[in-house]
């Protein structure tokens, strides 16, 4: 699992079950180690990926995750895209509020994941699915 990941191209993983969430976590950890993120940042980005991949599964009805090693010229980083074609999010501001949940969780996944990474971009509309892009830079 840790070997054989080609960093030069995006690594895709479909998310259709709980086991896939574990696979996403392992893939993200592998790439995060390869781009030399610190242990704390590795843990943060893996945890954020775990939250968002589970959201993709639970609320989006499954989707895909794409992990890419990136470099902005000054430092390396890791970019992860979570895409689903589920119902989308109607009220984004509400969804990003701490403690708000429609699924019986703690309501911290989306808002917490945003705090765990450096860049967080979300594109969603009712009926249009959801696409979240996060990036964590090495420091």
């Amino acid at each position, binding site marked *: 699992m840790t070997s054989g990941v080609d960093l030069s191209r995006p690594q895709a993983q479909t998310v259709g079950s709980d086991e896939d969430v574990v696979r996403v976590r392992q893939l993200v950890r592998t790439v995060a180690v390869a781009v030399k993120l610190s242990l704390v940042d590795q843990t943060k980005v893996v945890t954020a990926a*775990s939250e968002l991949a589970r959201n993709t599964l639970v609320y989006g009805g499954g989707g895909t995750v794409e992990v890419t090693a990136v470099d902005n010229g000054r430092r390396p980083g890791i970019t992860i895209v979570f895409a689903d074609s589920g119902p989308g999010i109607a009220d984004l501001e509400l969804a990003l509020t701490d403690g708000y949940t429609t699924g019986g969780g703690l309501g911290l996944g989306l808002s917490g994941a945003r705090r765990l990474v450096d860049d967080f971009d979300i594109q969603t509309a009712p009926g249009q699915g959801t696409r979240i892009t996060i990036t964590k830079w090495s420091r």
Partner: protein
Amino acid sequence: MALSTDESGRLADLLTSRVDRVIQRWTEVVGEQLRGRLSQAELLRQVQELHRALVDALGKGAVDLAAEEATELRAVLAELSRGQARQGFSATETATGVFALKDALLSAMEDDQSTRTLRDYVAFAAMVDQMGLFTFESYVHTREGLIADQAEQLLELSTPVVKLWEGVVAVPLVGTLDSARAQVVMERLLQTLVDTGSPYAIIDITGVPAVDTQVAQHILKTVVAARLMGADCIISGIRPQIAQTIVALGIEFGDIATKASLADALRHVLRLTGVESGRRQSRREA
């Protein structure tokens, strides 16, 4: 692609009339592939059994592997691949055991120079292919079964509840804490609390690689359930990177005691029991 009745009969003839040659070449090819991982006697026995089952099936008029007459042949193939899958042979090695029959057939047919030979060989080879694919499927099926068994065993294995001290039990969590495992952990812990009458439980998460909101929620539920039964829970094994991640996520453990290491947690409990044992007892009596 099924054999014609004629072809089926000719294949049976070939296999019986050249039995020595076929079996000799067959064992040779398989033996080469397995390089001594199976004893010569065992190998010969397997090849003879397959040979016999195939001849039987053809003799009864089977024209392909799916035929009613080939039931026993299928059973022999399935048994063979099950055995090899369990013994750790690779899929290639297992399938080669069947595909080697092609070599054996070719060697048995070499002397026959009639024009029919090529057509026959192609038809026979198609039959062998069917047998090979069937072997492969049985192999995969067996391996999947083994993996499912192991996953279940792992689930059992990885959630021990250990008694650390008089009145103190601990659950060292290792690996991914998904809903299924969280359920097993909670059941085991609560049952152990009842069985041992322990007032303290330590949940150690040193071996959990990432604590996300789902894991946290499972742990919190376990703690609340233990509290309902009158036991205090301490969460230990919170490493620096996990602590920082939990803070950033915004998870609050409230008034649940948390410690960096299992040793700290045990010390904490012993201090509580040592200093407050009188008070706890009087509270219980009241």
